[in-house]
């Protein structure tokens, strides 16, 4: 068992095989786990909160890169694993920050997280790497 680092989460990692159509890859499982955990805590799920949660869980000092994170998020929304909506402008104005794009895990996303292959089911971020 090896710790899955941010580098290994990237779909551009040289060592990572090209994914097949419909296959869920490491970064997507990590996002689903982080989103479910945040939802469970009653916290908002948005890009930066996901990056922070993933960094905490993987014990990484660096956050998931913008490109890697938002590319994966877009793909997951298209596939129905997540839903997204922009928070009301008033909430953001009251908090004095730009609007967040909020994500929620769909039933399909929760099913996908629960029914991952055995190799990745043991833990949130620990996967068996050959």
């Amino acid at each position, binding site marked *: 068992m090896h710790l899955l680092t941010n580098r290994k989460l*990237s779909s551009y990692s040289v060592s990572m095989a090209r994914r097949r159509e419909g296959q869920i890859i490491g970064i997507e499982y990590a996002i689903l786990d982080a989103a479910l955990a945040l939802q469970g805590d009653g916290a908002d799920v948005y890009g930066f909160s996901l990056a922070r949660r993933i960094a905490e869980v993987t014990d990484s000092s660096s956050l998931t890169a913008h*490109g890697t994170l938002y*590319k994966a998020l877009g793909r997951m929304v298209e596939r129905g694993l997540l839903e997204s909506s922009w928070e009301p402008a008033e909430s953001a104005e009251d908090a004095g920050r730009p609007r967040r794009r909020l994500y929620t895990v769909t039933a399909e996303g929760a099913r996908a997280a629960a029914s991952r292959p055995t190799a990745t089911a043991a833990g949130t971020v620990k996967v068996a790497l050959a």
Partner: protein
Amino acid sequence: MTRDATRGERLALRMIEGWVRAYTRGLERDVADDRVAELRSDLAEQHRHQRETGTRPSFAAVALLSRSARGAAADLAWRSRMVRARRQPMTSRSLHEWTTGMRRVFWLLAVAVITSACGVFILLRLAILDADALASGGWIALALTVATMADVAGLTMLVGRPGPRAGAMVLAVASPVTFWLADYAPAISVAAFGTTLTAAITGSGVVGLAILAAAGSGSAWLFLRGARRLPPDGNTSSRRE
């Protein structure tokens, strides 16, 4: 968002926003606007988090840039995917040209950052350590200052307006001047390259000059080549059939 940001952080944030605008250029407006807004929100959140955790501003700026740079390849892949998925009227040839162009801009940007940082560093260190040398440097100090300003302007143009080609042309002129003038005084050499390398440069004379000449000529060649190969500015987005 950037009200309490330092100059370095503001520069980092502007560069990242410029990069986001560059790779969303020519996409459907709602897709591009969503991406820009989401990144802007993320940058604000990260900046606020860094403030709350007491991250040093210099580290904060580097962390912001690093996070953006590490995802640059994914940004370009996302862009290509958006073009395909939305079936924009872009031919495979023009898509190939655009992607190739963006890769070139990325590398030009990397060298431009190094050149600009070198120039700014030399001037800052000189101003702090030996203001007299800067003041009495005459036309050389003036030329170095102008070249550094041109480097930074070219860097901004690479990711903003009028566009990467104009930026590359400015840098093709300014970057060799920055490198060539870096040797005009020992104080500047110390400031720019550190004591060890300075000793090597001053100790070996011709070798030191050759290193700087090679760096200057190399950067000029790189930017000229980039300017020749990039499509005209304002024509880097999708081309209609």
